[in-house]
């Protein structure tokens, strides 16, 4: 079971996200993360889905997606030749004893402090999903009050442009 990133172009219609997620649910495909965003073409949206499955399953997901009437393009993103990024916001309980070590970890991972209060700090970090995983690993000894990950979003490197 490998992690696969699918970039899907769909018509920017109401209900298209429901239609796509309903398809995944109906066929028993797993969605690990999902992002929807505008594109340079206002008639299109780009949905980036992270999913796990065997090769046959991914092929089936792609073929089923192509049958959607609002489908305009699908692209399996090759992680070795792509830019995959995710945003993480994490709120951690702080006091005198751990503040400096948290700042040290943040500086190693290039995480930014975006909010600070007497008992908490919020860090923001952008990067490959694996980098975020590793940052969260380093935070295990601390108390995470809340966190939020955006889900992966991705573009192919170079001049290639995914079109209809």
């Amino acid at each position: 079971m490998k992690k696969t990133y699918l970039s899907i172009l769909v018509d920017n219609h109401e209900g298209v996200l429901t239609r796509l997620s309903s398809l995944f649910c109906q066929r028993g495909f797993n969605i690990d993360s999902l992002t929807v965003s505008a594109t340079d073409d206002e008639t299109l949206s780009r949905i980036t889905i992270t999913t796990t499955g065997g090769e046959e399953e991914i092929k089936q997901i792609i073929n089923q997606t192509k049958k959607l009437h609002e489908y305009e393009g699908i692209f399996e993103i090759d992680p070795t030749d792509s830019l995959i990024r995710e945003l993480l916001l994490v709120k951690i309980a702080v006091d005198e004893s751990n503040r400096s070590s948290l700042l040290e970890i943040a500086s190693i991972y290039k995480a930014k402090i975006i909010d600070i209060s007497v008992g908490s700090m919020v860090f923001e970090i952008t990067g490959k999903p694996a980098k975020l995983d590793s940052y969260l690993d380093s935070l295990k000894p601390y108390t995470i009050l809340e966190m939020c990950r955006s889900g992966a979003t991705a573009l192919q490197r170079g001049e290639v442009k995914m079109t209809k």
Partner: protein
Amino acid sequence: MKLNGSQILANVLIENEVDTVFGYPGGAVLNIYDALYEYQDKITHYMTAHEQGASHAADGYARATGKTGVVIATSGPGATNLVTGIATAYMDSVPMVAITGNVPNSLIGRDSFQEVYIAGITMPITKHNFVVRKIEDLAPILRSAFKIAISGRPGPVLVDIPKDITAAVTEYEPQPKQVADKRSYIDGDNLAEIAKVINNAKKPVIFFGGGVKNSNAGELLKKIIEKANIPATHTIMAAGVLRYDMPENLGFLGMHGSVVANKAVDDADVVITVASRFSDRVALAPNKFAKKATLIHIDIDQSEIDKNVKTDYHIIGNAETVLGELENLLEEKKHDDWFAEINTFRRDIPYSVGGNTIHPKEIMDILSEVAGEDGLFVTDVGQHQMWAAQYLHHVKAENFLTSGGLGTMGYGYGAAIGAQIGTGRSHVFHITGDGSFHMNMNEACTAVTYKLPIISICLNNEALGMVRQWQTTFYGKRYASSEPDRKTDYVKVAEGFGAKGYSCRTAEEFRAALEEAVKLDTPVWIECIVDREERVLPMIPGGGTVDDIIYN
């Protein structure tokens, strides 16, 4: 010209040569029905007893005529009552356009009276669906609906129209009839290479499904079978594509398929699958399907490739186009040894007649004889359906309508109504069981109202025969809820509806009743008493192979 939404709907139907619609009125579609009243010289509306019946009628109409079936229902319960009919059409790839009314846009999302989000409900059972938000979108959406329903692999499309849209006025310009985006292109593996595999085969078998019927590729298929001398088997959806008595036709495949077909596929060295999706009723054990064979799969729908059974070669395209090109590449062959071997696989399932009941095979034989080669048969779902598939003398694909994929009990009466209206046949034969018939027998009132000569033959074994058969075989004869102690008097109920009823206990009585019925031009019910212990055989249990065939 300026027209209101309901008039635009009527005009788009007329553009698309729709002269027949099925449905049921209600609050949210009052404007639409007012337009149907206005356009009644061009569009005939048939009102059923229940929206489910209307949806099956649109389906039966489509299957029997090859045209797109149209059904109209009101919002809320009207719309939800269509769901089973839409799902039935979706599973069997039947072109249908379902129009539902909805509450006005101003009331949407407020849990208004008879409001339901039917677009959400039908998302997984339609090829696509639309909610019309503004009047300007109405005509283009309806046209797309007709196009989508018939393009590529056919299927149902739903258009939900809020009531204010049906009254709003806009400019309407007639447009030509929508035609299918014909997906005739061929994609996939090299056809010449595939032809070579077939030409070199010693034990080839063709296995085909409903797509051959949908793309009118039956004649081409026959040509290939004769030229390359290949035996063929089919799914229940493709019954009648080949004549039942064609020597190369091994009958249907799968759970209740013929022994010879199942064994031939199991022993084949090359299996060419045309327009079938390897459902679990055919490829019961997908990993062991035709285990010795090189598998070739031809289908219009790319997502069917390797979905259930992994194949060695595939071609994506319309069956007619692909078979047309393939035919040129195939060599004339003789497979006498293979046919001789296949003949050793044949096995008759013995059955006994007489007593106080009629054997299902006798019923199907008499039906085939009295109905003749133009007889149009519509089934419900269960044992009677399998007997009809096994024993009727199938000669034309469009003459056998059955809910294959969804297995919808209650499909038959509505579908028979649609088929009779669509074809204008002197008679349509609705084969049903006492279980299925009780689900939608209310449509008798529709058949009576419109004087439709539909003969319903009810195989009454006072049981849900197929459920009971499984309980006999796999559940130690623990007959949970499969022996309803019903006291229905079919003759009286038929008469109560204004139809004619017969009840028969012997083959002679049945023949006499049927011969009388075909002289009438009214709906007729014929009850046939069938032994409750009668099972559909042969049978391969779910997940099984030819090694697991149950013969008696």
